[in-house]
């Protein structure tokens, strides 16, 4: 029998949900609002909410002072590049782990996940020295490599979870029908895993887009993505809040828009396997 929920209870639940939602959304809203204020209004006490003279001045200044589109392009190349290379490595790995698991598959998966528990700063020095040695500092290629490796465990885990939901019978039927490994993966497995692949790609692009630690430490000017672009407005001296907010808004807008349009796919991806 379906559980009955009283109107009052519903109203309370709705109120709580809206409060939590607004709390989470508030920093983004405040950043966007601040980006349209002057520097003086941005630090006014008490804070000014909506009653201020809206200006695009900060956006103009930011674009004049730094080349937004170059950073944007670096972010696109690094996030999409690391995701595609990650997929190319993760698809065969997840296939093997899901369909021909060995005795140590579970251990391997746990080990991969455990690498995400290591504080990145712990390996910063060796990676920095390696990058320096191989001339990868401040290059798109260098960042693609490091972000691919960092996010690979998540891609493998997500694809592994998706592949595990695909009935083995169907792959065996393909084998009986004469499909080789390539046809089995390309013609049968991947088309069936499209929803899972899509959410994996989306999540990985978001993670790579927002990655700040490695991008800040391994880039200077040439390959710096939007995260480095935002950081360049964070200064201990001077009035930069409004410009910093404008830069942040410009940096998160593309990924926010992408996330908005693909939220259904993302939620499905993140809750996959939780319920049948």
């Amino acid at each position, binding site marked *: 029998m379906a559980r009955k929920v009283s109107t009052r209870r519903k109203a309370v639940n709705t109120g709580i949900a809206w409060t939590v939602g607004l709390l989470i959304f508030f920093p983004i809203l405040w950043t966007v609002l601040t980006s349209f204020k002057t520097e003086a209004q941005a630090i006014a006490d008490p804070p000014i909410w909506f009653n201020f003279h809206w200006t695009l001045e900060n956006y103009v200044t930011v674009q004049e002072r730094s080349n937004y589109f170059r950073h944007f392009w670096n972010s696109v190349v690094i996030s999409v590049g690391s995701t595609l290379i990650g997929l190319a490595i993760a698809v065969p790995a997840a296939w093997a782990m899901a369909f021909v698991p060995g005795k140590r598959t579970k251990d391997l998966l746990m080990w991969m996940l455990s690498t995400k528990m290591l504080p990145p700063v712990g390996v910063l020095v060796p990676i920095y020295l390696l990058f320096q040695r191989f001339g990868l500092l401040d290059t798109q290629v260098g960042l693609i490599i490091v972000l691919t490796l960092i996010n690979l465990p998540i891609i493998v885990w997500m694809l592994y979870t998706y592949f595990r939901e695909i*009935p083995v*019978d*169907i792959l*065996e039927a*393909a*084998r*009986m*029908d004469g499909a080789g490994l390539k046809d089995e993966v390309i013609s*049968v497995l991947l088309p*069936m895993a499209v929803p899972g692949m899509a959410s994996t790609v989306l999540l990985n692009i978001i993670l790579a887009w927002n990655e700040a630690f490695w991008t800040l430490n391994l880039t200077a000017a040439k390959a710096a993505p939007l995260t480095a672009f935002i950081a360049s407005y964070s200064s201990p001296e001077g009035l930069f809040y409004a410009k910093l907010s404008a830069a942040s808004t410009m940096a998160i807008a593309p990924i926010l828009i992408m996330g908005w349009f693909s939220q259904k796919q993302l939620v499905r991806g993140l809750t996959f396997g939780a319920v049948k």
Partner: protein
Amino acid sequence: MGRITLDKVTKSFGEVQVIPPLDLTIDDGEFVVFVGPSGCGKSTLLRLIAGLEDITSGQIRIDREDATHVPPAKRGLAMVFQSYALYPHMSVRKNIAFPLKMAKMDAAERDKRVDYAASVLNLTDYLDRRPGQLSGGQRQRVAIGRAIVREPAAFLFDEPLSNLDAALRVNMRLEISELHNTLKTTMVYVTHDQVEAMTMADKIVVLHAGRIEQVGSPLELYHTPRNTFVAGFIGSPKMNLIEGPEAAKHAAHTIGIRPEHLDTSAEAGTWEGRVGVSEHLGSDTFFHVHDTGLAETLTVRASGEVALRHGDRIFLTPQMDKLHRFDAEGLRIA
């Protein structure tokens, strides 16, 4: 041609041997059914023939060629899975055509074969639908269509009807038998349902704990079961197996009498007892008789409707020419 020979085939998973050394020959054009209880190894045996599992030792020959290490796709066999295993992202036409596409057959010939299979299986109107838009029976027909178009040396069926409802199961059973009569291709069929086995098979292979208990025609198995396991497994309701002094009177450790071979009377008979639960099927009545002085409850099958009520007294007499005798090892005494 579709002659399949298993020569001392074994299969182990780690330390556990699920198929002890096993020999079997399936002749060309035969309809062979592997039957046995859950976990007896019948599906594993089918998968070994298909090549979906590697055998641990022994040899599998298909049409006298050693196929032991030949991959599934190259064995010339087609398989119909219990779960249908259709490709959900492809239309029915693409599903059926998939093996032909893998064989790089040209599009015109492919279409011709798909259309023929669809007409045989009454699927012509559904060719553009996806599997998700079909009923269980239609999906099973698509799975069979996908097998037919390959013109395989043999068809392998892994409990293909177990996901269907009872009425549809009977229809599909007839359709598969009809298909075998039309194509005359070897069919190996796995089921745990002995009624399916009895009604469809030319030859039944009864399996128990990975071993073959008996191979024979349905009626051979019914009339001369080799041991108590086969006697109990083949036939529905199952054979009454009686041990103790009553069996000793017939110089046996165990005697067996099928429910349909017990005559009933209200006045006199070999065993007197009381009627317990009765199951009325219309065409037949099954009733269970207690308090006969035997350790076992006896099941009786009477033709038509029988007006016996719970607690009624009844006399039962076995038809002596239909009595089966087994020794202490459970083996049939000739």
